[in-house]
């Protein structure tokens, strides 16, 4: 299997048939989601450069892999992002200020959200560890006779971890309604995908778990939608899990503390950039007369407005109290050690709030501890 599912054409390839389930409203909503994600991401990078956020893991160019699959999900389906899909929650009513706050170093009520309320897993940092959670959630749903599925995003690098394997295997054995959505952006920090696995096409990994695998064009939100939609239908009909490989390219750095020039030819990235999903989808939607310039700029203006107010909210947050350290560690009664520790803290002068590092002119550097340390 080497061909990718693709709807939106590119220089060399014509458009394919639009799935009939998708009307104008749907297409616009997918595009609007991409715009929101893009605006958030660009804003976050800028804030980081200005020293207003900590190190940030940008997803510029991966909006199709997020907006498409999400739109295929029903509201009852659970989604589990990695750090790369950090802002996906804002499309599920998580305040954008919460996500900004997380990157600003906030926890507690400011930086975290209620996972059950939004059906959005916490932003997951340790690679591949959230895959079993996605399986567990959808397995529980199945055991309870509900129809809620789950979708989990992860990278090409994540396929090397044991947790990937164990999660895929559980899903296969128990036929859980789980969608494994692998964003193959061809890099895990500095490690290219061909050093990550001897397999050529990641989608072929699915067979080892008795589940279908498909590769889609990861710069095409409609292809991402379609593959997810079909997988969800299958899952809800009791057909079990699916694996989707969204083949794309990491157009930016791994994170704001990473300098890709150390390890890759940036001309290659520039070349892939021609396929980046926002411009490509916009052109397509204009081609099929679903979008025009006015509507497009309206979407951007709206998104910028709401992101700007989220930034303002984030910056209006108070310095969290000392209690934040202790308050939500347990859902049950707090152990005695906490009170004692809090008293100890209260008895000395409080250190000042930790600020993100100052403005970062020039290109980011890798891991220099004078610079912020990347979420790696």
């Amino acid at each position, binding site marked *: 299997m080497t061909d990718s599912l693709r709807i939106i054409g590119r220089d060399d390839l014509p458009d394919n048939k639009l799935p009939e389930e998708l009307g104008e409203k749907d297409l616009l909503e997918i595009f609007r989601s991409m715009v929101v994600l893009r605006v958030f991401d660009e804003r976050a990078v800028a804030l980081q450069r200005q020293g207003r956020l900590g190190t940030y893991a940008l997803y510029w160019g991966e909006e199709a892999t997020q907006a498409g699959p999400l739109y295929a999900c029903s509201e009852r389906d*659970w989604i589990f992002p990695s750090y790369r899909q950090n802002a996906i929650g804002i499309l599920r009513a998580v305040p954008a200020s919460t996500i900004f706050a997380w990157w600003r170093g906030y926890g507690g009520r400011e930086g975290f959200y209620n996972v059950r309320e939004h059906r959005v897993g916490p932003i997951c940092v340790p690679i591949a560890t959230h895959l079993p959670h996605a399986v567990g*959630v959808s*397995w529980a*749903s199945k055991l*309870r006779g509900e129809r809620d599925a789950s979708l989990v995003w992860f990278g090409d690098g994540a396929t090397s971890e044991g*947790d990937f394997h164990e999660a895929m*295997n559980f899903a296969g054995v128990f036929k859980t309604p789980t969608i494994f959505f692998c964003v193959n952006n061809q890099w895990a920090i500095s490690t290219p995908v061909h050093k990550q696995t001897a397999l050529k096409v990641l989608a072929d990994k699915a067979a080892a778990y008795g589940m279908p695998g498909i590769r889609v064009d990861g710069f095409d939100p409609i292809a991402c939608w379609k593959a997810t939609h079909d997988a969800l239908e299958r899952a809800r009909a009791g057909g079990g899990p699916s694996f989707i490989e969204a083949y794309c390219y990491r157009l930016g750095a791994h994170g704001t503390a990473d300098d890709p020039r150390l390890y890759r030819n940036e001309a290659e990235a520039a070349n892939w950039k021609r396929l980046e999903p926002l411009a490509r989808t916009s052109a397509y939607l204009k081609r099929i007369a679903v979008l025009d310039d006015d509507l497009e700029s309206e979407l951007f203006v709206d998104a910028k407005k709401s992101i700007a107010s989220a930034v303002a909210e984030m910056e209006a947050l108070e310095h969290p109290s000392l209690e934040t350290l202790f308050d*939500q560690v347990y859902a*049950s*009664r707090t152990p005695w050690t906490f009170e004692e520790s809090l008293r100890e803290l209260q008895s000395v002068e409080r250190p000042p709030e930790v600020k993100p590092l100052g403005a970062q002119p020039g290109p980011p550097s890798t891991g220099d501890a004078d610079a912020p340390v990347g979420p790696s």
Partner: protein
Amino acid sequence: MVEGLNLALDQAMAADDRVLVMGEDVARTGGVFRVTAGLLDKYGDDRVIDTPLAEAGIVGTAIGMAVYGLLPVIEIQFDTFVYPGFEQIVVHAARYAWRTRGEVPASIVVRIPFGGGVRAPELHSDSPEALFAHVPGLKVVCPSTPEDARDMLLAAIEHPDPVIFMEPKRIYRAGRQDFPEEPPFDISSADGVTTDYLSKARIARSGHDLALISYGATVPACMEAAERLSSERGVDARVVDLRSLYPLDVDTLVDAATACGRAVVVHEAPRTAGLGAEVSSLIHERAMLDLEAPVGRVTGFDVPFPQFINEDDYIPSVDRILAGCNKVLDW
């Protein structure tokens, strides 16, 4: 103790249909120690689940189930086999509440039969409890009687936070004991009640000359040592069964040390950075002026748990405990 555990699972599953049991070989066989025996027939294979052989997968999917709203109780087949699930426990189970503003804790129970003394082959006898006590966000408990096993497991299941439930396999069959079948509390009780059951030490023997502090399979050895201290040198030892390893019941500990003026802590796990060190530090910090001697430690050694022909050299014996007590008494 196996009967107590089995009863707790049965009662919890009967009372609350969110409770389920999963792990390697727990369903058809009822587990290698038969703790889950009979549950499959009673509750069916949607609630008593044989899983693939993958501990990270077991812990991780159980966390997902808990996030969904179920209450999974998982069995780790033997102590040493918890290590592949360690990451899921440390970075996820322990931090899910924290990461969700206290609103979505990973309400799982991880049952771990642990420790030596059953002539098991290599790597079936570890005592990893201190590792979990050092990890913030977990409750870590260990019963030493059948009744406590039942009561504490029931409480652990209904408790909102993740509980590492250490089961001293050496005394799985020992000390059969009658206790009221009725659960000691309303099974759907709130956090307050379950927290009490999961955080209080037990005075297993009263006394005023020496505090012997332990948990799990070394509690019976401490009781025996206490009897011998009494008959051999007229020393009346108070035996404290910790039950909760995190958080420690510091009041009961310090009271005992203060009242007795001397204390010895006993466990099977390696000495360095074991729970004995924590208990000893707490007592010195809070009761140094009341102490007639430094707190003694009688523990396993800083070596891999030996092959079984030597295991009784490793496990704190009554003689070693006595020697430790005598050292503190004669200091």
